[in-house]
């Protein structure tokens, strides 16, 4: 096999195309993709683009992406809920008192401060209060707009700060140290700090978020025309818009002198130092921007998947490992490749998920397990196993990915012709 490929290099590309085609065909039954699928693809693509910016272009082996995505979700679950409560209390004083009298058993002996802690920290309080708060916020376009700005502002700033903090210890060291630190920081923040501290955002039980979308002006009019617009549609629109913005951003960056310098730094950081560039500072800037992008993605994701559980939902496989697979398959340091790889892997995983019960019905009699149980387990584990295999195969067969890296197009053909 390997020697055959060595003899006919074109076979590699052919093989990749066949694999891609097979994936899409397998995914055909799913082509009645739901809106949430399209939404999820948009979100994961933002994460892949951010990862590609950090790892593909700048050569930072970010094995801690999940944390940055979670920070965005935390902006809603941990911060947004409390900001919303504060907004409501400020605009209609006595709201907390009202809550307390409505739920004497749960909130009766809590001080106002404790209510603020418990609104995101205690599952029961969280459950009842968020819906009540949401109904007040929903009714006011000013309140919901304020909440949106607060939540996304926090997501961007906290995401960027976390990106800097996470990499600070190893930013001057070799890339393997950087990978270890990013993985360790992310794992411990998500699975220990956030998952074990109820007061932050519900700990292992998670917290429900207050959906922040403003119902302003045109939207209200539209709502009148169409009936109510489901939140998921707004989230989808925002997700697609942010995806487009991120794509334009990273693509412009990639085709600017900055992109070229990042690729040079990735190839040989010592030499780029000799040419007067500060590697540590550049890495920190890239970490801040990439992490902020991932954080925005996490925040938008939480507007649809409104119960935010740290370790459970924002696990390293879904948010670190799968994006890596998408990027490697599509082609590192190529934004179009990242998008293509993202779509293929998403659909592929979906297809396996779809076919898992069929596989389970075959193997369950052999193992003596109930078909439905086997199906559930296959659904959960098989896609991950195949993604792992995919990464290794791509690295072996076509390390440059489907669409290989290209020079940074800082000047167009016409511009070059004009000056030469």
């Amino acid at each position: 096999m390997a020697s055959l490929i060595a003899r006919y290099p074109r076979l590699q590309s052919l093989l990749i195309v066949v694999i891609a085609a097979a994936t899409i065909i397998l995914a055909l039954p799913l082509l009645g993709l739901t809106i949430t699928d399209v939404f999820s693809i948009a979100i994961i693509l933002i994460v892949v683009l951010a990862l590609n910016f950090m790892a593909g272009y700048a050569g930072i082996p970010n094995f801690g992406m999940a944390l940055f995505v979670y920070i965005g979700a935390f902006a809603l679950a941990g911060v947004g809920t409390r900001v919303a409560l504060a907004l409501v209390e400020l605009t209609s004083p006595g709201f907390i008192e009202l809550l307390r009298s409505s739920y004497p058993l749960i909130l009766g002996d809590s001080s106002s401060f404790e209510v603020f802690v418990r609104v995101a920290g205690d599952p029961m309080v969280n459950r009842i209060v968020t819906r009540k708060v949401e109904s007040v916020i929903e009714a006011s376009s000013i309140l919901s707009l304020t909440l949106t700005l607060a939540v996304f502002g926090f997501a961007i700033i906290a995401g960027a700060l976390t990106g800097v903090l996470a990499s600070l210890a190893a930013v001057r060291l070799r890339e393997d140290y950087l990978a270890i630190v990013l993985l360790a920081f992310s794992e411990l923040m998500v699975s220990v700090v956030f998952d074990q501290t109820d007061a932050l955002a519900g700990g292992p039980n998670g917290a429900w978020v207050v959906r922040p979308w403003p119902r302003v002006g045109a939207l209200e009019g539209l709502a009148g025309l169409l009936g109510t617009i489901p939140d998921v549609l707004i989230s989808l629109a925002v997700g697609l818009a942010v995806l487009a913005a991120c794509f334009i951003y990273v693509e412009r960056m990639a085709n600017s002198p900055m992109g070229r310098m990042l690729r040079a730094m990735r190839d040989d950081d010592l030499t780029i130092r000799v040419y007067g560039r500060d590697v540590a500072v550049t890495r920190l800037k890239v970490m801040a921007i990439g992490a902020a992008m991932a954080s925005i993605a996490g925040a938008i994701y939480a507007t649809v998947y409104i119960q935010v559980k740290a370790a459970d939902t924002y696990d390293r496989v879904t948010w670190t490992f799968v994006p890596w697979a998408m990027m490697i398959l599509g082609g590192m340091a190529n934004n179009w490749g990242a998008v293509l790889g993202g779509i293929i892997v998403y659909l592929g995983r979906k297809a396996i998920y779809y076919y898992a019960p069929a596989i389970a019905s075959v193997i369950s009699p052999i193992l003596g397990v109930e078909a439905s149980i086997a199906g559930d387990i296959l659904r959960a584990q098989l896609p991950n196993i195949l993604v792992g295999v995919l990464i290794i195969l791509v690295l072996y067969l076509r390390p440059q990915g489907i669409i290989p890296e290209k020079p940074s197009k800082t000047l167009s053909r016409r511009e070059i012709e004009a000056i030469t």
Partner: protein
Amino acid sequence: MKALDEVSLEVPRGRVTLLIGPNGSGKTTLINVISGVLRPDGGTIIFEGLDITRLSSHERSKLGIVRSFQIPRLFQNLSVMENAIVGRDGNPGESVARSLFKRLWVEFEKKAFLDALGKLEFVGLKGLSERRPGELSGGQMKLLEISRTLMPMNPKLVLTDEPVAGVNPVLAHEILAFIKNVAVEFGVTFLIVEHRLDVAVEYADYAYAMHLGKVIAEGEPRKVLEDPKVIESYLGM
């Protein structure tokens, strides 16, 4: 043992200065000290009247001190053109914000591009500017690296470690002629460590010979090479 022992030397501006000496005489150490990779235990380094002894490597690079490596260190996934143009520092398009607005850097980029193209043309690599370094021959890699050392905004002192090692004799002459030409035309100062003395001697304006961490002779290159002390240092006991 000290790699460098009370070394004092002056490198004349806009000239090609040759640094020679047998193995272990301290030449590369000297280059490392001047470029800021190593710190001296004592003494001072004055560059254009400025004491740079305590400056870091990338600060010195900003003053116009550039170096090349014995084995060319090229960016393997960048094209030949990109390898050259990335040598230009101070590009406004290398800021995370300004890079997004092409009009803020396009003029600078155009100038840098033309400059890089000129340098590549000069060394005969223009036709290969879209290739990757891996597709070049050894001599071409050397040429590309030397043209990159000339790309910074204001290259004043270029330190090169064996620019013609592993290069065929014809190309070796071309490379050194190119260096000489740049020195004459652009007033760039070169300090060259080179072992191919037969070739190098033709293009250098001045020479220093080192042995066991000390400067043992200096002056007109041919005279230095014929200095009995220098010959002795090469021949050994």
